């Protein structure tokens, strides 16, 4: 079995920890506790016939003017950029922020996930997606456990590329 280091990055409070908790532990909590530094969780996923041990780095959320330390990306095989569908400031500069992550990580493809879909109507989400300047891979809800598994599967597939 191969191990792959993958990172979840994005503004603080977008639900990175909640996505990981939902994926790894099948848990969700409404309480918001900000992440300090990096917490690494792991889960074995199957992509095709291959089993991968995903080492998921939950990187502390940032402000717009903060950059993720480059060291975190060393040896990373894939990264997921998470934004909050209900908070404009988390996706208003999405294109630029993804370019920064690409530059820091050296990764060509970044999985883009819009979280907290439970807070918006489907019409609102459709409209929002049209206004976002980069393709969004998946719309998720850690709270309602919607598309979380799929988001990490996409991430795992990308880690193999």
């Amino acid at each position: 079995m191969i191990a792959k280091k993958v990172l979840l990055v994005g503004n603080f409070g977008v639900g990175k920890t909640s996505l990981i908790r939902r994926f790894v532990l099948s848990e969700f909590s409404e309480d918001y506790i900000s992440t300090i530094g990096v917490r690494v969780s792991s889960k074995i996923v199957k992509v095709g016939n291959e089993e991968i041990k995903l080492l998921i780095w939950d990187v502390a959320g940032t402000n717009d003017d903060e950059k993720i330390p480059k060291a975190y990306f060393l040896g990373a095989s894939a990264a997921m950029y998470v934004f909050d569908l209900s908070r404009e400031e988390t996706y208003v500069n999405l294109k630029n922020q993804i370019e920064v992550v690409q530059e820091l990580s050296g990764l060509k493809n970044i999985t883009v996930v819009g979280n907290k879909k439970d807070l918006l109507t489907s019409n609102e989400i459709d409209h929002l997606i049209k206004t976002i300047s980069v393709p969004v891979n998946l719309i998720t809800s850690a709270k309602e456990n919607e598309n979380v598994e799929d988001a990490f599967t996409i991430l795992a597939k990308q880690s193999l590329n």
Partner: protein
Amino acid sequence: MIPSKIDSVFIEITTDFKGVIKRVNAGGFAEKEFIVNESIFFVCPFLIGTLEALPLDEFFSMEGMIITSNSIEFNVDVELFRSKKSISVLIHDRTKVYRFVEQLNQSRNDVFFAKREISEKNKELARLRKVADKANEEKTRFLAMMSHEVRNPLTAILGYTDMISEEPLGDKAKEYIGYLTSAGENLKVIVNDILDLSRIEAGKLELVSEEINIKEIVNNCFVNYKNQQKDKVVVLDLVVSSAISDIVFGDSVRVTQVLSNLLSNALKFTKKGSVSLEVELVYAGKKTTEICFKIVDTGRGMTVEQTAKIFEEYQQNELNDNRVFGGAGLGLSIVKRLVEAMNGTISVFSELNVGSTFSVEIPFKKYIEQQSKSGLSRINLEKMSLKGMRILIVDDDLLNQKITSHFLKKKDVTVVVFNNGLEALEELDNQSFDVVLLDINMPGITGEELIQRKSSFKKNNNTAFIALTGNATQKDRGNYLSLGFSDVIFKPFKSDELIEKISVFFNKF
């Protein structure tokens, strides 16, 4: 020898390229977790992938990583160095520092989310306020429209009642006409009160600041009620302090409204004894003066409980008060709001079966040059003749036409009547008039449209045009004056009001 305090906060390990611990070089931090010949990845899963990718002969650091020892989580900073033979891993326990960072971050983020929540609530409040404002505007518009619609028939009711009362009538008929007049007047008060209240509630009450003669206002109010009290046993007194300035800046309409309302109330509830209006100086500064208006009656008075509620809306002291005395119970509530809008105060002292005293204190800006405003003496309207005056009435309401004509003809005025603006337009080019009384809402050409064509008339360019309208707000009045009307008379009007306003222009001829 490393001191134990330092020794316990770091550990230095050497591993091979696969992460197998080869040696613990120094330090005692979490030493039980790092076992020689075992993988460092058990304790430091974050090194998986990282270790293999380390650049050669370069120091590499990672901050804020988490490791677990004895089931306790520690925040550590890690320094890595890959040589040709092995990898050196230096781990610093920075848990205390990161706890502070964590608290700061948590607080920062909590503040952010709290601010966001407040901002969202403010947005929602602003939205709800807009909705409420719109509803309020609609209500005001509706009330203004209804007021207009009610005023026209009310003009007819009051006018014809007045006309009938001048005819020879039997006792029964006189009695019934008395009731009809009373009911009509009561309806007029209610319409005005409702409109006033909605305007105040919508924050659209606009006070005028103009030169006003307090003594004249007080005297006019007094004379008005004195005339009405001729047949009654209640004595009406007026006491005005000589220290009161004649001219101040204020809103004569609203001051009159306040005094009229209080006097009317006092007379309503006083069956015997007296009602007095006392005007005293409270304060006289260089620029301002404060005047107290006291309305003292020996009427039925009120209990403490009744007094406490007297300024509330729709309050009348007994369930059937409004049936006996009329009104919607809005008068005193409006008075209080008007007084407050003038930066004044109102208070009441009352004793059951002894009487009540309402005290209104209002500050006014002083008029520096103490001059009489108009110098006009009160006109004796009853004896006045307007003989020789030619007045054009333009009104689409037949009943209103007849009433207005009747009032004017009694004063020997030559009256010409037209049903609409279009007919009048033609005649204004042919005949000269001293005054034109113009209804506003008419089919074809409205009064507003007609006045705006005044300068193009072949005749009557200098004639006084007076708006005769049921649109009875001060805003409407201001609008009509700005369009070129010389004055505005609100429906329903009394004969005296009509004649007094017209007589101003008669004096000019």
